[in-house]
């Protein structure tokens, strides 16, 4: 599908649409770069500020002050944060790819690159859509478990 060059109808990309697309691509590149930098900074913050988090875990009380518990909790918290940062980081690359390809396509007047750039935007939208479905499913599951808990209490 993506490699097809044929136009179904004579909708050309005129100069106004072109300027809109350039603007969209530039802002998307900016947002993608911000997203990537912020995600990497958060990972660095977790790595270097991790020891602070680790030391604070001992203040949970005597019951949870064992070293093995602290290590486990620290590793769990780190994995949890890294997982969510990765979830946010992945679409930033799709966004960056869309922006770069769009700018190149318009500069080089390349139909193939234009198709690929819109494909990247499609993947970006699809990614967030699927993530939304996953989050809704988790909420629904929590609701079902809560209702079951209330029913069988």
């Amino acid at each position, binding site marked *: 599908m993506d490699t097809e060059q044929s136009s179904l109808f*004579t*909708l050309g990309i*005129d100069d106004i649409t072109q300027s809109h697309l350039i603007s969209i691509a530039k802002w998307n590149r900016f947002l993608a770069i911000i997203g990537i930098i912020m995600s990497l900074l958060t990972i660095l913050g977790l790595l270097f500020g991790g020891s602070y988090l680790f030391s604070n875990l001992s203040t949970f009380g005597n019951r949870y002050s064992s070293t093995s518990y602290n290590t486990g909790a620290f590793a769990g918290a780190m994995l949890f944060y890294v997982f969510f940062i990765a979830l946010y980081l992945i679409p930033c690359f799709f966004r960056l790819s869309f922006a770069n390809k769009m700018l190149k396509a318009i500069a080089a007047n390349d139909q193939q690159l234009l198709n690929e750039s*819109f494909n990247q935007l499609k993947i970006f939208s699809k990614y967030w859509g699927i993530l939304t479905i996953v989050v809704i499913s988790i909420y629904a599951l929590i609701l079902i478990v809560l209702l079951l808990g209330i029913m069988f209490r």
Partner: protein
Amino acid sequence: MEDLTGETQAPSLFDITISESVIYSFEQICKWVFFQLYVVGGSIVLGVLIALLDSDSIERSLYSKFGEYTYYVAGTFVIVIIIYCAFLGLLFNFALKVKKGMAKQDVQKVEQGVASLKIYFILSGIGGMLYILTLVFGVVRLGYT
């Protein structure tokens, strides 16, 4: 240049066109954008309904935290939601106009949709800049204290 509806279109300065692949991508993008907007819209409506049904306890809870500033906080929250809805309206406008433009083969509708998407991303970019400025300000302030 005239499209199928007979309206005069701006001539294309470039050889690149809205190909079958781009149409497919646009259709998919619109589909997912609509889905996410319905989810967000549904969540906001649900939140407002819960707030209306349980307004007394929410008011008490807010009053215990903010005291005399309760109504300012609630008002600010409502304004933020309204601005957020207007912001999402741009995305809705994009999806709706592009979808209609594709169906009617109307390049002006597609162009209007793309213009809405441009404004949406410009506002997102400005939001991103404000976020970074706030973050830098916070870090600098933390360094001084």
